[in-house]
C-alpha cells in the first residue's frame, strides 16, 4: 500500500506542477458550451477534475482523509460548499431566480477553484518540490509576459472572453488602442495575475542570493511593463498596496519611500494608464469634462428614457436625427447626451456607471430578497465587478461569512509560518499574504474570485504556502 501511496504522491506532484504551468499558459479555448451562458467548460477543467479525483483516492488510501476532515480550514471549506448547496436549492425552488443547470455549473466552478487549496497543501511535501514549483512559475510568468509583448508588437493571436461572441474561441488580433491580455482572455485578468506575481517577486527578491536577484528583478520589471500596458488602474493600486504590505511584513520599511516615488514617477509619465487615472478623478469624482449635449431636441428628450436609442415623437421626422453622433467624427457613435465626449473619459465614465447603476444595485436587490442565502450562483448575471457584493447577492450573509472564515483561517495559518527559520519560506509567506491583500483590493471592483485563471492560481498559491507548514525537510 505504501508503494501505491508513493506512486500517487509523485503523480499528484507532477500533475500539480503541470497545472501551475498549464492554467496560466493555455488560452481560454472552450471545450464545450453550456446552454444559457457563455461560460464554457475548458480542457483545464478536465485536468483539474482528474487531479482532484486522483487526490481523493490518495486521501482515502493514505489515511489522510480523517486528518483532512479534522482540519479547521477544511471544515470552513466544506461549510462554504454546504451553504452553496443550500443557496442553490433555495434559488431553484424558493426564489426561482436561477436556471438549475447554470447555477450548479457556477457552484461547481467555486468548488473547482477552492478545492485546489487543500489539494496543493497536501501534495507538495518537500522544500525541493516547493522550489521546483517556484522555478516553473517564474518561467511561466516569463512566457506570459513575452506572449503579451508578441500580441502588442508582433500581432500574435488574441483569445478573449470579454463578450459572448469572442468567448466562442475566436482568434483575434489587437486593434489600435486595445489592451494586451496575453493568455488570460481579458486585460483585467492579466493585470490581476501580474499584480499577484510582482508582489511575490518583491518578497522573494529580498530572500534570495545576489546572483538570483538579477533574474528576479528583470522578471519583475518585465511584468510591471506589461501591467502598464494593460492600463488597469485598480491592479496598479492593488500592486502598490501589495508591495507596501510586503515591505511592512518583511520589515523592509526603509524602501517604502523609494517605492512611492517610483510609482508616482510611473504615473506622471504619459501613458494610457495615466490618462485613465486622470479621467477617473476628473470625470467620476469631480464630474468634470466636456459632455455631449445631443444634436437635436429628439436626442435630448430621448436621453431621459430608459432606452435612449428609442425613437420619440417630436416635430422632426428626419432619419438623421436617430443617430447620436456621426461615425466620421471623433465622437463615439453610440454616445448619448450627458456622457463625456473624450473617448478615454467616456470609457472610464461607463466603466464606473455600469457598476454604480446596474451591477451593484442588482447585487444589493438580490441580497434584500434573501439576506441569508442570496438568490443563488448565476442569479445576478455574469459580472458584478465587486466580489463582496456579488457574494452577498448570490449566497447572502451565510455564504459570505463562510467565505470570510476560509480567508481568516488561511491568514492565521500562513501568519504562523513567519516563525519558520527558512528565510525563503518566511519571505514567500509575506509575499503570499500581501498577494491576498492585493487580491482582495482587486475584488472591490472586479470579480477576481470568479475569474477562472486568476482564481485558480490564487487558491493554488495559498495552498502552496500552506504546504510549507508540513515540510519534512524544513
Amino acid at each position: 500500500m505504501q508503494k501505491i501511496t508513493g506512486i500517487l504522491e509523485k503523480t499528484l506532484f507532477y500533475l500539480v506542477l503541470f497545472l501551475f504551468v498549464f492554467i496560466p499558459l493555455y488560452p481560454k479555448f472552450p471545450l464545450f458550451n453550456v446552454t444559457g451562458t457563455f461560460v464554457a467548460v475548458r480542457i483545464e477543467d478536465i485536468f483539474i477534475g482528474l487531479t482532484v479525483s486522483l487526490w481523493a483516492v490518495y486521501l482515502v488510501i493514505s489515511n489522510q482523509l480523517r486528518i483532512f476532515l479534522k482540519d479547521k480550514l477544511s471544515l470552513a471549506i466544506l461549510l462554504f460548499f454546504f451553504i452553496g448547496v443550500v443557496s442553490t436549492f433555495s434559488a431553484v425552488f424558493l426564489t426561482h431566480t436561477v436556471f438549475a443547470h447554470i447555477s450548479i455549473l457556477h457552484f461547481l466552478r467555486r468548488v473547482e477553484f477552492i478545492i485546489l487549496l487543500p489539494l496543493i497543501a497536501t501534495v507538495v511535501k518537500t522544500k525541493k518540490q516547493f522550489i521546483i514549483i517556484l522555478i516553473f512559475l517564474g518561467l511561466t510568468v516569463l512566457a506570459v509576459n513575452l506572449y503579451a509583448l508578441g500580441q502588442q508588437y508582433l500581432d500574435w493571436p488574441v483569445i478573449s472572453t470579454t463578450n459572448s461572441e469572442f468567448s466562442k474561441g475566436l482568434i483575434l488580433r489587437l486593434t489600435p488602442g486595445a489592451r494586451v491580455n496575453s493568455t488570460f482572455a481579458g486585460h483585467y485578468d492579466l493585470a490581476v495575475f501580474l499584480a499577484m506575481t510582482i508582489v511575490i517577486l518583491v518578497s522573494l527578491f529580498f530572500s534570495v542570493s545576489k546572483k538570483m536577484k538579477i533574474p528576479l528583478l528583470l522578471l519583475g520589471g518585465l511584468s510591471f511593463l506589461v501591467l502598464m500596458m494593460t492600463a488597469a488602474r485598480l491592479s496598479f493600486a492593488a500592486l502598490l498596496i501589495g508591495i507596501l504590505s510586503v515591505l511592512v511584513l518583511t520589515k523592509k520599511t526603509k524602501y517604502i519611500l523609494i517605492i512611492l516615488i517610483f510609482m508616482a514617477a510611473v504615473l506622471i509619465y504619459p501613458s494610457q494608464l495615466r490618462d485613465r487615472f486622470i479621467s477617473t478623478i476628473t470625470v467620476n469624482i469631480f464630474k468634470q469634462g466636456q459632455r455631449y449635449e445631443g444634436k437635436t431636441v429628439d436626442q435630448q428628450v430621448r436621453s431621459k428614457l430608459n432606452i435612449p436609442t428609442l425613437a420619440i415623437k417630436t416635430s422632426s421626422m428626419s432619419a438623421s436625427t436617430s443617430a447620436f453622433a456621426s461615425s466620421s467624427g471623433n465622437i463615439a457613435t453610440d454616445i448619448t447626451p450627458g456622457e463625456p465626449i473624450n473617448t478615454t473619459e467616456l470609457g472610464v465614465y461607463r466603466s464606473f456607471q455600469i457598476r454604480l447603476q446596474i451591477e451593484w444595485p442588482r447585487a444589493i436587490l438580490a441580497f434584500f430578497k434573501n439576506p441569508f442565502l442570496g438568490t443563488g450562483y448565476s442569479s445576478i448575471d455574469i459580472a458584478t465587478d465587486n466580489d463582496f457584493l456579488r457574494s452577498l447577492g448570490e449566497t447572502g450573509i451565510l455564504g459570505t461569512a463562510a467565505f470570510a472564515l476560509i480567508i481568516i483561517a488561511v491568514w492565521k495559518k500562513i501568519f504562523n509560518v513567519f516563525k519558520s527559520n527558512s528565510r525563503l519560506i518566511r519571505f514567500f509567506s509575506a509575499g503570499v499574504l500581501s498577494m491576498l491583500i492585493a487580491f482582495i483590493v482587486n475584488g472591490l471592483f472586479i470579480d477576481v474570485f470568479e475569474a477562472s485563471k486568476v482564481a485558480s492560481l490564487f487558491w493554488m498559491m495559498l495552498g502552496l504556502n500552506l504546504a510549507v507548514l508540513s515540510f519534512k525537510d524544513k
Partner: protein
Amino acid sequence: MIKKVFILFSVLLLIYMLWPGPGQISDFKALPSSSKSKLEGDTIQIPNVSAYFSDNFRKFVVPYYADLYQNKMNFPFPPLRLNHPPEYSWIAIKKHTDSTYIEELTYPLRDSLYVNGYEPFYSDGSPKFWGSTKFEENGGSWYTKTTLRYYPSASLIRILVWFGIISSFYLLFRVGRKII
C-alpha cells in the same frame, strides 16, 4: 443565552416562512376598471400569469398590489418593493414582454409577485415615444397594460430551506469558534 436566542430565532423564522399566503395568481384581484387580457401568454401558457388593460399607471398599480399582497398575508408590514430594470421582464414574466417598469413585491425567504407595466403614454396622455399607440382590446381603448406573475413555493421547500439556514448558522458558529 445564545442557545435561547438561537432557538427563538429558529422558531420565529419557521413561523414566518410557513405562514399561509396566496397560492396562485388568481388569489390576487384584478386591477380596478380594467379588462383582463385573453392574449396568448397572458392566460394559461405561462403558469401564474395574468394581465390587465386599463388606464391605471404605475403610481396606482404597484401600491395597489402591495396592499393586496399584505392583506392576503395578514402581516403588519408591507412586502419589499424591489425595482428592476425593464429588460428583466423577459426573465421574470416571459420573453418578449413589453415593459416600461417592473417591480417585485416580495417577502424575503417567501414568494414574489412581479408587477410589470407597459406604459407608452405619460399619465397626462402624451406619448412617451414615437409609435406609441393605445391598446385596442376587448372592445375598449386603454393607455396601459399591467402583467402580473406570481412565484409561489411549496411548504415542504420552505421547510427544507429553513432547515438549511438553521443548520448553516449552527455550523458557522461551531466552525467560526474554532477558527477565530
